[in-house]
């Protein structure tokens, strides 16, 4: 078998007991959609960069994944996004880190790679660059999702519990807060 696209998608904070069959089905459908979008680009003679963009935009626009719309929350209650792209053909690369208003971070990472002499931009500078490139800027509220907000509250509760000085309260169930995105 010759594969042409491979993807991965993490749900971020996982409440183990809560992953219902229906929810799992939603994930599998969205991953299939991402694969099909990338595959269509390849079949239409587009580049691997365009195929990667097509797949990742599908997942960034879905609240299911910890990227774009479904991003988890920082301790300060913000959604802070990062993205990177690298083209094996010429080893060009683009990356952004620590942004709060960019709807599709992968698009901006590609613009950094193709329209700037830099590899990595961060924070406000990356957001200014995105605006200059005409890429979509959204109100940070766009990234708010209830279940991620609840995950943050539970993670904070857990943090209190882990704190030796904390009173001996114990959360009713544990969120396994994956250390990866």
């Amino acid at each position, binding site marked *: 078998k010759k594969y042409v*696209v*491979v993807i991965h998608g993490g749900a971020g904070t996982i409440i183990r007991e809560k992953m219902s069959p229906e929810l799992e089905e939603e994930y599998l459908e969205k991953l*299939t959609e991402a694969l099909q979008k990338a595959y269509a680009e390849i079949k239409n003679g587009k580049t*691997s960069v365009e195929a990667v963009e097509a797949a990742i935009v599908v997942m960034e626009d879905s609240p299911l994944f910890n990227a774009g719309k479904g991003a988890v929350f920082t301790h300060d209650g913000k959604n802070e996004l990062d993205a990177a792209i690298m083209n094996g*053909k010429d080893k060009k690369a683009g990356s952004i880190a620590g942004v709060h208003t960019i709807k599709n971070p992968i698009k901006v990472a590609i613009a950094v790679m193709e329209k700037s002499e830099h590899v990595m931009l961060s924070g406000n500078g990356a957001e200014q660059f995105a605006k200059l490139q005409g890429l979509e800027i959204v109100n940070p509220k766009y990234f708010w999702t209830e279940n991620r907000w609840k995950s943050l509250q539970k993670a904070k509760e857990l943090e209190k519990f882990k704190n030796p000085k904390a009173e001996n309260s114990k959360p009713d169930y544990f969120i396994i807060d994956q250390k*990866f995105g």
Partner: protein
Amino acid sequence: TVGCVALDQFGNLAAGTSTGGMTNKKYGRIGDAPIIGAGTYADENVGISATGWGEFFIRSTAARTIAAKIQYLNKDVKTAAQETIDEIEKMGGDGGLIALDKNGNIAMPFNTSGMYRGAITEDGEIEVEIYK
């Protein structure tokens, strides 16, 4: 975190990763996803996108290490990827990654549950699964 590696009709590879970071993270912490050579890398032989405990993927320069094992030691993509994930596990980290080489071979080693991954062949055959 989400990621994708693609191989186009011209034989060129590209790798991309996008993430919302880590729940409850502080101090502007950055993980491996945006770090070229750690969570994202592509050259003429292979493309890699990772999703792991970022600090360990940065310290082990995970994505570049896989490419280097292929480039200098002639390892196949599965061996190179698994060795790298095993090294990260030995350091105390966890997570997973996807890798696709220029011949259309893939590797998807994961050692953390809850990760989803999928792949499609040049004939349009789709595989999607969740790592339990």
